[in-house]
């Protein structure tokens, strides 16, 4: 046995242990074993997360930050413990910089409406990239409509990488913010965010990173990156839906006006005027998604228990295994061939529309995403209406990549008769 095979074997054993943590992977669809390759849309949940959520509802359901009674104290402790876990996960300087929100979309809207409306004026410019998800485009368009600011767009090259020279040329004295994806949800491209941040900061421009597709696949250190805002969703990190995180530097968050008003975010209220709570509560109006936050805390424990070195090594090996298999399929074109990628394979197939590919793969038990992936400007850039996208998580195996390839051959067999 050669060393590569030995390495494969130990990787296989490790993945089998991880798979056992995810009850849903036992599921069958259409009489076939589930091959879940839609992880960029949402990841499956380990038992530890499911039990953390149900444990809260079974044993200590109560509102947080309000009650004098025992359950409320337990719920508050678990809620704030989750904040500390997220702080350690992304190495924020303080737990006060961790704002719990509904998800990445909510986080970006918060920055656009609070930071944006207080700082950005007519004639100002915001730099985005051509590969952004609609959630990192539309909030800025709304802000532009409200303020008279305008958007400038970093173009993407044929391989799916940002054209950095164009970025340097776009940034000027009118630029007030740069908002880019850490990792592209459609292409898997890992963007050179350090260089973007260094360059923007050299011109006193703050940077928001959309970390939705990075957080489960790369170690993220917001202090090392020196980003000003970082947004991500819990459900793409093996946690529950409906909960996410906005990280912001304390000095920026402190100076920002509240986004939503309500309970929890106030210190005192009178009809003459209201004083606001301190960070992070100033941005957490109303009863939060308590179960979601506690579940997210369990998800953070789960991935840090595995370690980003181990899971990234596995996902990179799987990407390296699957990429040539797909590329060798006649008529198949992979969209997104950046040098640095996470485990995302977007592709089109000659003679078969992605939607048909998706249906046929589904009958084989293979779950992928098809469509524009909420990146319509990027689809236009590559001249396609839609792609099929397979995306890997830590529990995916080489056998599943083989099943994907076999199912694509089934599509070809049907469409090439």
């Amino acid at each position, binding site marked *: 046995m050669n060393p590569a095979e030995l390495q494969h074997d130990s990787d296989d054993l490790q993945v089998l242990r991880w798979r056992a943590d995810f009850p849903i992977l036992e599921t069958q669809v*259409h*009489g076939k074993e589930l091959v879940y390759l839609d992880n960029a849309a949402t990841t499956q949940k380990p038992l530890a997360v499911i039990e953390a959520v149900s444990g809260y509802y079974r044993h200590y359901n109560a509102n947080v930050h309000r009650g004098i009674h025992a359950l409320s104290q337990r719920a508050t402790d678990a809620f704030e413990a989750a904040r500390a876990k997220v702080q350690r996960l992304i190495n924020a300087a303080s737990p006060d910089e961790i704002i719990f929100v509904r998800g990445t979309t909510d986080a970006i809207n918060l920055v656009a409406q609070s930071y944006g409306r207080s700082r950005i004026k007519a004639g100002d410019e915001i730099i985005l990239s051509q590969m952004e998800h609609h959630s990192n485009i539309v909030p800025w368009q709304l802000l532009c409509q409200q303020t008279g600011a305008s958007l400038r767009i970093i173009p993407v090259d044929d391989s799916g990488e940002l054209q950095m020279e164009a970025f340097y040329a776009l940034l000027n004295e009118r630029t007030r913010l740069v908002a880019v994806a850490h990792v592209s949800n459609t292409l898997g491209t890992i963007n050179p965010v350090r260089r973007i941040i260094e360059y923007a900061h050299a011109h006193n421009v703050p940077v928001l990173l959309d970390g939705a597709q990075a957080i489960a696949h790369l170690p993220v250190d917001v202090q090392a990156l020196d980003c000003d805002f970082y947004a991500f969703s819990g459900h793409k990190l093996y946690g529950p839906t409906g909960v996410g995180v906005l990280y912001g530097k304390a000095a920026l968050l402190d100076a920002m006006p509240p986004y939503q008003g309500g309970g929890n975010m106030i210190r005192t209220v009178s009809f003459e005027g209201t004083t606001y709570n301190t960070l992070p509560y100033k941005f957490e109006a109303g009863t939060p998604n308590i179960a979601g936050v506690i579940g997210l805390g369990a998800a953070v424990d789960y991935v840090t228990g595995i370690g980003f070195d181990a899971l990234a090594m596995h996902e990179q090996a799987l990407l390296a295994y699957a990429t040539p298999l797909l590329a060798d399929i006649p008529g198949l074109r992979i969209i997104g061939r950046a040098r640095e990628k996470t485990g995302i394979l977007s592709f089109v197939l000659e003679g*078969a*529309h*992605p*939607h*048909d590919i998706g*249906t*046929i793969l589904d*009958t084989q038990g293979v779950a992928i995403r*098809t*469509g*524009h992936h909420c990146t319509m400007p990027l*689809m236009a850039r590559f001249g396609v*209406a*839609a792609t099929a996208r397979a995306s890997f998580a830590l529990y995916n195996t080489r056998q599943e990549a083989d099943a994907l390839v076999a199912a694509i051959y089934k599509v070809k067999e*049907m*469409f090439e*008769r």
Partner: protein
Amino acid sequence: MIDLRELYQETIFDHYRKPRNYGRLDGANRRAEGYNPLCGDKVVLYLRVENGVILDVRFEGSGCAIATASASLLTENIKGRSEEEALQLMDGFIGMVTGVATTGELGKLEVLAGVREFPQRVKCATLAWHTMKAALKNADEPVTTE
């Protein structure tokens, strides 16, 4: 077990690969665009209607096999019919693919009956028909499946 052959019948592939009445229609007096934002399917339908009768129909667009075949079959099946008959046909077709009505009287359109087993694909099959309805009303607004 879901049978793919129920959905992808030979006639559907035939219409997907060689769509009938494809292209712009000179002399059209009704036109509408249909769009499915979920998958990017797009169809433009051109009609020439005189005295309540659809004298000619053509379509353009890009879409999946189901959407393209459905548009192609639509053009074959509404040409020469009155507006009223075409709308009745639409009701029958939508009833068939959503599984609320039994088939019958739909002729060649019945090759798309398999769609009822694939609820995610109903919008692909009905896009051209919703677009036809908009064109008959001569609506200027693009129709979407959402």
